[in-house]
């Protein structure tokens, strides 16, 4: 395993025209460097950090490079697909969808999550009917281990959401498990779980579903770590929804931020769908609200 890090280091060394001697200067001898490069012989973390220091690359940047820029295996495709399917970023999803669909079998919890998102996506783009979705999704759920964790919750929540269930007991049970999740283990999955739970609660007008506030706080904490455009947009709408549920008029400001983000990020079809969602949850006409807001905005005053 350490070998791949040295291979990445070697790529960067060559790219930047640095000699092996300069790279290793004061850290290790050149022979040791070539040994790390040619087999999985271990080197200390400190050695790697000092070598990186010699070519002026921080460890975290280096890992970004090894993980993202060099990644060509299928796992990156899965993550990219899940992310796009979840946030409904469909403009460039097809290539990841077809790559993922080719190779995945529901043989372990991680792969079951991928399969669940494949079904979810196919349902959302009307490739399969609700009946078909429901049947196949149930079959997937039967393959899951009984506990509610980072891998088993997304398929369960997606099923609950897409089949328009309203059983508060089940939702509460999910909420209990979600509250105790350690989001750091798979931040993307955790973010998706929080978002889906809050969306279900909002759509069902279940403002008093236990843990909703705690889960919103968790979503916000995660947003502090991962400043992501799409998830930040979710932060706006659920922040707004919680204020609204408390009868607080301040819900309008984050709601407008939410819709401005939708205007930027999506096409007209999604804009109209989101307007329907806002009408359903907040009972407001977002078009009128936006017009009124933009007309009364004057930053030059």
């Amino acid at each position, binding site marked *: 395993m350490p070998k791949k890090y040295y291979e990445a280091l070697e790529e960067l060394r060559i790219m930047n025209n640095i000699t092996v001697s300069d790279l290793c200067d004061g850290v290790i001898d050149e022979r040791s460097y070539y040994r790390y490069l040619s087999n999985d012989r271990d080197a200390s973390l400190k050695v790697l950090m000092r070598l990186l220091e010699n070519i002026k690359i921080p460890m*975290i940047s280096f890992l970004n490079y090894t993980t993202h820029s060099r990644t060509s295996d299928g796992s990156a495709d899965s993550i990219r697909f899940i992310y796009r399917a979840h946030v409904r970023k469909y403009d460039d999803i097809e290539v990841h969808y077809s790559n993922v669909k080719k190779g995945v079998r529901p043989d372990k919890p991680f792969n079951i999550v991928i399969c669940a998102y494949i079904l979810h996506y196919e349902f959302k783009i009307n490739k399969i009917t609700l009946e078909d979705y429901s049947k196949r999704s149930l079959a997937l759920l039967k393959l899951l281990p009984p506990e509610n964790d980072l891998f088993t919750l997304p398929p369960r929540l997606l099923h609950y959401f897409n089949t328009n269930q309203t059983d508060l007991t089940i939702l509460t049970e999910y909420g209990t498990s979600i509250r105790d999740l350690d989001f750091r283990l798979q931040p993307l999955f955790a973010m998706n779980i929080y978002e889906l739970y809050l969306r279900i609660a909002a759509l069902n007008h279940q403002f008093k579903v236990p843990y909703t506030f705690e889960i919103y706080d968790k979503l916000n904490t995660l947003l502090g770590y991962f400043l992501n455009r799409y998830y930040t947009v979710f932060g706006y709408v659920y922040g707004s929804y919680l204020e609204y549920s408390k009868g607080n008029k301040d819900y309008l400001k984050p709601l407008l931020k939410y819709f401005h983000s939708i205007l930027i990020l999506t096409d007209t079809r999604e804009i109209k769908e989101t307007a329907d969602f806002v009408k359903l949850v907040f009972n407001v006409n977002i078009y009128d609200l*936006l017009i009124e807001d933009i007309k009364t905005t004057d930053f030059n005053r």
Partner: protein
Amino acid sequence: MAITEFDVIRMLDKMRVEKNITIINFTNGIISRRTYSRLISGEAKIGLTELLRFVDRLGVPLLEFLTLAHNTVFLENIHEYEFQQLIYDHRFKEAYDKYYNKVKTATLRTPFSAGFPLSIPILEEKVGIITRNELIQILHEKVDLNALLSNNLLTDDTIEVLIYFSPFATKKQITLIADYLYDVLINAKGIIIGSNLEQCTMKTYTLLLNLLPETTTDKKRVFECVIKALNFVSKAAVIPDDIDLLYEVKRIHDVYKFSDFVILHLMSALKCVDSPRFNKHKKELFIEKNVTLFINQLSIDFNGNHRKPLIQEIIEDAQKVLRSA
């Protein structure tokens, strides 16, 4: 200074404690308990294989584990970020009162603090400690532009330094910087390596677009950059740095009048941010003509013809200009 081996070990042990794993279970089959104690006290070194096995035991991918370690250092030194933001906002008095003494002599830990040796004298000039001539002299002494621009790896450090240095660079130096950024971003003659890759790339595109109008009148070259930058934005997830980039696209729109969607994009984006950093942009954008444009488009969005996401519409308009150039 980036994160150290000690920061990594500290994070490892913190997560072990949080996950209620005993030292015996944690170290079993990896290293002895005694060696683990020596690691914690900084007396022993950790092997890369051992680190990978430890993070595997915690159930965390290495990158995410180190991101957390990195973020911990970031949060412990949040004043460095706040100082940088105030300088970006041109809120020099506040930056001086709150953070000057703290950042002036301290060992800096976060990735963007590489620009501090430049931003500190910039601040000193603004509050009257040094003169403008002295500032320019200091900046030109501190920045070895040739060395910086001969590096094929563009890091957080590079871009931070270039952002601060560019406004004080000579015309010739600005051309050199723009050519370098063009080579990295458009000609792929180098690569970007950042602690937050997207943020670093976003800043690099933004600086290139900022410098372009000063260095070229070649429409083709300008629109190549605009399209590439917008394609990047359409896939990137970092906010609100995209506003800075779109604002530079808007400046290019002011010259070539190629897509009113830039105005609409910026207006909505500015409605989502509260930072005083963007007050200048807000005052410029929210004028009667643009408000009318916005209302008309809103009516189309709800009742009229189909449109793609705004960024795609802007890209398509830019492509038309490129084809005709």
